[in-house]
């Protein structure tokens, strides 16, 4: 019967279908397992096994940030570094936040479960889930928090060449040990102490955005070195008057000096010359408008210029106002990529796991997110930013014996006094850049608060290594 020939082909069709199922199961249960299981929507992370000691969270030097201890009848969670690292560790109790939530899978996973339970059955040793060691330096975190002196804002410091996050501070903070009891008052607090501003706090970038405008000019304006503007403290654009800070008249400005003195009228004119489309393309090449994955949740800094943007929108965006919104972690990554010859590294905060027997494993390897600019572009931006700290608006951030390159920013705040920004990085005499930093202080007294906090923290880091 001839149809039997075709029936044999049906075997092939279904064989392929079934094999695809198997391959897909291997994918989700094998390759994607950690990523999927770590989702905060996974209810399996909140299975509480009272007999198991939840993993600890340690900083890069082994300092305990979160630990469970047996009090005779159950385990209680303690946070020795309290509010200094509260947004990193998060809390458990009323739900979970921070790493308690995002690293929940690692913190409840039990290495060699059979061996541990066997030992437990015989000699009542503790059953210990895996601990995580972070890239965070809790001492620097404490220092940064103290420097902020209760003002609202955030500090992020990272290693430009690896993407390790050293400091992640958000202020005001809270005490994770008592977060469950005070949860309602914390939630209703107008200053949002529970919000991790480093990742989820979005601000207008202010003048720090001028670095991006400068890069856009370098890419799109052939004679940008000869582009000069006579600054009179304010300039008229279509529907919009742009003022320099305090209406200071800077005189004749070129790109380097304009960045150094943060001249708004210059950058507004430069942005207009470059155009909305090119400015937007440059920002997008720097990973704006893109979701960036991070252990503590993905984030996206945004700008919305395009070819059809009105002149007023373009000039506002060029100086960091308008509808542009960035978070401190992104700004630290931007500074890092300039320090790292144009390569933007993927930020990470979990360094490795520590198992019950003291062995370590599961190391996070630094990985490149994207090459966002050429080496020459990075070098040129770096030189201009160095001038900012040496003799421009960012002198507060200078560190003796090192070259600090940076950019200050004052972001107009419609609800009160302006926010103070600083982004930058530090380079030693051998040309290595150990730290990149982003600081934002909400409504401070002086406009250079950000640069001052950055400088103090960098000096502290250098002196206490």
């Amino acid at each position: 019967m001839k149809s039997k020939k075709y029936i044999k082909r049906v075997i092939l069709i279904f064989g392929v279908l079934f094999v695809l199922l198997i391959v897909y199961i291997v994918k989700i249960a094998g390759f994607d397992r950690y990523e999927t299981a770590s989702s905060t929507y996974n209810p399996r992370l909140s299975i509480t096994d009272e007999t198991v000691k939840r993993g600890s969270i340690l900083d890069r030097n082994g300092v305990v940030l979160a630990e469970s201890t047996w009090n005779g009848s159950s385990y209680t969670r303690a946070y020795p570094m309290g509010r200094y690292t509260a947004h990193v560790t998060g809390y458990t109790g009323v739900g979970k936040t921070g790493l308690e939530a995002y690293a929940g899978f690692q913190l409840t996973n039990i290495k060699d479960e059979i061996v541990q339970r066997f030992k437990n059955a015989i000699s009542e040793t503790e059953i210990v889930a895996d601990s995580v060691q972070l890239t965070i330096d809790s001492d620097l975190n404490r220092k940064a928090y103290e420097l902020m002196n209760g003002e609202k804002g955030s500090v992020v410091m990272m290693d430009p060449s690896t993407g390790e996050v050293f400091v992640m501070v958000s202020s005001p903070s809270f005490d994770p040990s008592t977060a469950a009891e005070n949860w309602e008052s914390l939630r209703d607090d107008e200053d949002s102490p529970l919000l991790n501003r480093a990742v989820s706090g979005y601000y207008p970038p202010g003048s720090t955005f001028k670095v991006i405008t400068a890069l856009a000019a370098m890419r799109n304006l052939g004679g940008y070195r000869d582009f000069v503007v006579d600054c009179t403290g304010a300039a008229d654009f279509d529907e919009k008057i742009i003022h320099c800070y305090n209406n200071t008249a800077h005189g004749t400005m070129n790109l380097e000096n304009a960045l150094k003195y943060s001249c708004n009228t210059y950058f507004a004119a430069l942005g207009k010359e470059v155009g909305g489309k090119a400015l937007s393309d440059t920002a997008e090449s720097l990973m704006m408008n893109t979701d960036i994955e991070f252990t503590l949740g993905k984030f996206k800094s945004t700008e919305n210029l395009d070819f059809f943007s009105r002149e007023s929108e373009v000039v506002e965006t060029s100086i960091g106002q308008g509808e542009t919104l960035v978070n401190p972690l992104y700004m630290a990554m931007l500074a890092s990529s300039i320090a790292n010859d144009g390569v933007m590294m993927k930020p990470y905060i979990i360094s490795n796991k520590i198992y019950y027997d003291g062995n370590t494993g599961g190391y996070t390897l630094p990985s490149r997110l994207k090459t966002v600019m050429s080496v020459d572009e990075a070098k040129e931006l770096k030189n201009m930013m160095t001038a900012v700290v040496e003799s421009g608006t960012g002198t507060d951030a200078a560190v003796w014996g090192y070259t600090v390159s940076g950019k200050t920013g004052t972001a107009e705040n419609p609800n009160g006094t302006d926010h103070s920004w600083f982004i930058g990085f530090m380079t030693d005499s051998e040309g290595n850049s150990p730290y990149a930093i982003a600081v934002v202080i909400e409504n401070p007294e002086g406009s250079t608060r950000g640069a001052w906090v950055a400088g103090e923290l960098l000096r502290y880091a250098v002196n206490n290594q």
Partner: protein
Amino acid sequence: MYDLVILLSRYLFIFYIIFFVMQSVRIFLGESGMARVKPYLCYAYQKVTMVFMHLTAFIILAYNNGEYSFKAEGLVLCGAGLLFICIASWIWEKVYRYSNKLLWNTIIFFMDISIIMLYRLNPQIALRQAEWIGIGFILSLIIPLLMKLIKKPEKLRILYVVLMYILILLPFFAGREEYGSLNWISIGSVSFQPSEVVKFLFVFYLASKFKERFSIADVLGTGLVTLGIVGSMVYQKDLGGALIFFVVYVIMLYCATGRFFWLAGGFGLLIGAAFAAFKLFYHVKVRMQTWLDPWQDPSGGGYQVLQSVFAIASWGFLGRGLGRGIPQKIPVVERDFIFSAICEEFGSFFGICIIVLFITFFYMGIKIALRGRKSFNVGLALGFTVLISFQFFLIIGGVIKFIPLTGVTMPFISYGGTSVVVSILIAGILQWLNGDAEKEELEEAARLEEEERLLEEYENLSEEERNELDIIMSRRAGDSDEIEEIY
């Protein structure tokens, strides 16, 4: 300590299923002559494996942790299960002549997993499932008799079509909505899905058309009948069911005509229809979007499938251990999502082995089709095998988020009266076809032997005797010609 036992039991369960699959593979190798095996030993090993798996699971599940006692209903179900494992296939083999022992073992294994998992999820449901398995078992014993009584089932084509349409249109008048589909009707306290019964009629109808010469008129006729059925199922929002019927039709059309055109055209039409449905029907759109990006609404539309993926992925290949997971977090876990619960507690590797076992089931079904002599039998075996296999693919693919979720049950394993009874009956029909094919093969072998014997006798005759015989034979042939002329 209890935890420790369960953790260790995970390795046992994986050993059981691998051992079971190994025996199946050995039997196939033996049949194809690639290895020398003793099939009866393999069947016996499988039986023993099932007994041990059943005992291991129920010792864990029926045990009251900390009280040093067992739950009574657990022990009863355990005993009933053991009895079923031991005698069901024995009875089946008595009722069905020349049936395939491996196929019986495989479906008993599936049903045992079903009972274990359902008992773990909800003992009450497991008891009811056991009742349904019993009912299915008893009904399946009637099939050989029924097939003997109905001499020419391929002649009842009109009856199939009429019954099919009555059943499929019934929910429009007397139906009610369950699990989002309007394809349930209730008689007294029992509710069932008419589309499950239509499955039989549909395959019988297509098989009756399944023949050597398949004209364009046949394509059109069967196509229209199929279109009506599939259309009303889509209207009842039973997308999975509609898809299964359509695929069965396309595959059978392809095998009957041998034209690749129908296969390609059928799937082209399917994609077109899916696209149109996406544009036209809101609920289809929601399902597609849920599949493409469940993270859009992880606590709403995407909830179900994400919970399923979490269950499968969280504990890796070894699983969490029987009774230690939280499969109840998945809505309707005992029906459509039973596979996720199995993967969560027995491990994804166990789940993969179930798929492998189902591949062996599919292979056995196709082999029955290939052995068939009558085109009707070939069509039946092919139709039922494709139907049940595609249903299996749809639901597994759906719960692992490989394809969009369509609410169909997992054959033999999902909870549900109609589903499990239909699965058993389909297996019964396949077994009957297997027996029929085997019987015909044996008869043919006997006939060939007889012919050979006669030929040998003929050769041994003397010249005169041969001539005499030839004359007699030619006269007989002439007689029969005359008889036909008279008619």
